[in-house]
């Protein structure tokens, strides 16, 4: 479990103070994968540097399994850091070392006996499926393989938390999915807590149990995937489940509704039930239905007849657990 409370980071830029993190609080339970999304400049990089204490936060705390990492001496800090394994966007492997030497690095630092190192490295390479590349140098590996080495190296110290900073942003779509699958598999096998910082919604959809949206140094929205997707007023719903292309503007004069729903509702004939019950026509302007993890999610844009009883229909939909926003009424 990782707990971040009220993390603030203020940089001095000339005589001006720049607030990069403005009170970020977050808790990820053990064994869960949490995504943090945000545009560039939202404070993602600063957050990563503060979580690993590469930068000292101005105030606030970071704790792993209840043990605080902030406010410790530099000696304790080095040990504390070993409880968070970090995966970088460009893997940041050491080019002068082979795969196995890269993975062994964290153990080398604390003078672990050679046979123990060899056993641990073999186990980790097996875990990420790179046993046959043990003697290869990073330059001889593909981007995806390099990232696998990076993940193995991050796991060498048996950390409680795996912090991934844009782990797939430099990879092609197929490799991205392979790496995300690996992360999920590792989570299942090691029951490790994973925090993924990314700007790619695809990563959130593919791997995360929950997600937070970071904007101007603040978390403006957070929750499980189901919660944020069915939150019609949030920003994450429409970015996670966007309508295809430019959803056409309504031509008629009837009200336009955006529907967000999940699970059972997604499999029920919502539209025809509205049409039947309220004796009106329903026109589907755009829609997307996706399976994320175990759940099915739908985002539909509907247009009703101008004379339809809008309030009653909205009430009916809401009582069925569907999040509704009225777009262009009348």
């Amino acid at each position, binding site marked *: 479990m990782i707990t971040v409370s009220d993390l603030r980071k203020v940089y001095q830029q000339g005589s001006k103070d720049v607030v990069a993190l403005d009170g970020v609080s977050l808790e990820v339970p053990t064994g869960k994968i949490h995504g943090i999304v945000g545009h560039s400049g939202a404070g993602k990089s600063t957050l990563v540097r503060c979580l690993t204490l590469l930068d000292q936060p101005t105030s606030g705390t970071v704790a792993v399994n209840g043990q605080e990492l902030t406010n410790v001496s530099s000696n304790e800090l*080095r*040990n504390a850091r*070993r409880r968070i394994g970090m995966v970088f966007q460009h893997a940041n492997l*050491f080019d*002068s070392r082979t795969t196995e030497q890269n993975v062994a690095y964290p153990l*080398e*630092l*604390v003078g672990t006996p050679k046979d123990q190192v060899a056993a641990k490295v073999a186990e980790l390479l097996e875990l990420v499926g790179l046993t046959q590349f043990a003697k290869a*140098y990073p330059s001889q590996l593909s981007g995806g393989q390099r990232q696998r080495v990076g993940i193995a*190296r991050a796991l060498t110290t048996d950390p409680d938390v795996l912090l991934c900073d844009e782990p797939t942003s430099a990879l092609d779509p197929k490799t991205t999915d392979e790496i995300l699958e690996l992360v999920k598999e590792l989570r299942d096998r090691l029951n490790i807590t994973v925090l993924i910082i990314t700007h790619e919604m695809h990563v959130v959809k593919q791997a995360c149990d929950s997600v937070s949206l970071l904007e101007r140094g603040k978390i403006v929205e957070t929750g499980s995937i189901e919660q944020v997707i069915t939150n019609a007023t949030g920003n994450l719903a429409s970015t996670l489940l966007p309508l295809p292309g430019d959803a056409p503007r309504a031509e008629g004069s009837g009200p336009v509704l955006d529907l967000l729903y999940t699970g059972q509702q997604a499999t029920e004939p919502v539209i025809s039930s509205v049409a039947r019950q309220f004796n009106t026509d329903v026109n589907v302007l755009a829609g997307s239905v996706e399976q994320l993890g175990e759940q099915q999610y739908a985002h539909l844009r509907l247009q009703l007849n101008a004379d339809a009883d809008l309030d009653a229909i909205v009430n009916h939909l809401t009582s069925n657990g569907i999040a509704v926003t009225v777009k262009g009424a009348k």
Partner: protein
Amino acid sequence: MDFFTPTVLKAMGTATVETLEMVVISGVITIVIGLVLGILLHVTGKGGLTPIRWMNVVLSGIIINITRSIPFAILMVSLIPFSALVVGTSIGPIAASVSLTIGTIPFFARLVETALRDVSSGKVDAALVMGSTKMQTIRKVLVPEAMPGIIAAVTTTVVTLIGYSAMAGLVGGGGLGRMAYTYGYTRYNMPIMITTIIVIVIMVQLVQIVGDLIARKVDHR
């Protein structure tokens, strides 16, 4: 071929040995001190591992930049009393090594600093995040990752030293520089002059070839 009397051949051999002596002595000391200085320059610099402003200003601005702005011929002459103080004599290859070392350390230190700067900050971050001390980061990450650049810097420095050693020969250092001067310039003995040039060219080529070979061996980028 009657220029190459036994005396001349013997002088040529001695001169070659003297040149090698100067290059090896000053080379080894330059590499050891220059490497430390280059690392200090890098880690105390802005954005380095331990930025220490005053130290960086002293090292970079005062020591290195001033030493490097003095032309080597002048530096060498001005250091003659100092050499006498350090090694007890102002002539011979050992005395010349003192000024050669002082003249090349700043040059080598700058090259090392540049090589270290080429190591991406992401690798340093990775090392720190995994719990490395600053010393471990320098020894196990910064220097090994910069090794191809450092080897190239050593090669360039040794080649420069061969050139400087010829100059040092003129003010009492001996070696091939002295040989070329006495036989080639004062006696206008062209064949001997050309022979010294050939010996020096071979030396430089050997250093370059060996240097490139080692650089390629340690470069896994």
